[in-house]
């Protein structure tokens, strides 16, 4: 069997500009878990084996490297762990379809506020909350991972554009910062 080499979505190194840092993430396996009608109970049993449960709208859960993010009505993404065998849900491997970035640092909310039309200020968007919205015009799943860190998931085919948009904004904000003195 040939050895396949996993390549990252784009060849981009970590960047720090102003108060924010952008880096590629290797999130591991990504599976869509879409509950069937009346599948909630069986689905919950499967997720229990990972110490997780199906998240409420706009929420996520974490257990070690595994996390589950609400992504739609009766749909969630399991990230960082192989999907367990489970009844009650359609499980689709999405690992190769997404690019993941981490955006962190004190300036993170200023960067996001230029590209995201939803209120994700640190005061309005608690750690663990998830929002599915646009990063400028690109579809995105955004999760606040900790106090000053966000995870950004976009379509792998749009990874270069997403990176460019974020880096551009970080540069603009850094430039503004130098004018303030």
């Amino acid at each position, binding site marked *: 069997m040939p050895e396949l080499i996993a390549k990252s979505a784009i060849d981009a190194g970590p960047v720090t500009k102003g108060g924010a840092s952008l880096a590629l993430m290797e999130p591991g396996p990504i599976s869509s878990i879409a*509950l069937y*009608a*009346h*599948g*909630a109970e069986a*689905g*919950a049993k499967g997720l229990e084996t990972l110490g997780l449960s*199906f*998240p*409420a*709208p*706009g*929420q996520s859960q974490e257990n070690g490297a595994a996390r589950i993010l*609400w*992504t*739609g*009505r*009766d749909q*969630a993404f399991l990230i960082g762990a192989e999907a367990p065998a489970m009844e009650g849900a359609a499980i689709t491997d999405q690992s190769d379809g997404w690019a993941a970035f981490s955006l962190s640092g004190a300036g993170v909310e200023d960067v996001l506020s230029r590209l995201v*039309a*939803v209120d994700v200020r640190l005061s309005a968007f608690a750690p663990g909350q998830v*929002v*599915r*919205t*646009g990063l400028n015009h690109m*579809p995105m799943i955004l999760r606040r991972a900790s106090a000053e860190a966000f995870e950004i998931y976009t379509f792998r085919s749009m990874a270069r554009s997403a990176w460019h948009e974020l880096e551009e904004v970080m540069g603009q904000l850094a430039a503004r910062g130098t004018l303030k003195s």
Partner: protein
Amino acid sequence: MRLTCPLCGSRDRREFYYYGADTYLNRPAPDAPMAAWDDYLHLRDNPAGVTRDLWYHEQGCAQWLKVTRNTVTHEISAVELVAGPAAGGKGASE
């Protein structure tokens, strides 16, 4: 204009795609008379006042929404999921 998606909360109009009157939900039976199909496909009211139409939360949860709004005051009085409540997730986000 903002719509309050029952799952995602208050969102900007740019996240939604407008489809048309909620008449589209009441599809006639395949053997319905031609007049019923003509009505379903082509005839729409144009009310000055309360109207109900369908919006798609394209840049969000990808759900079809039934929106009740007033064309005179621009008030949006209800936004409901066409698909009904979810089975797994509990209620709406805060």
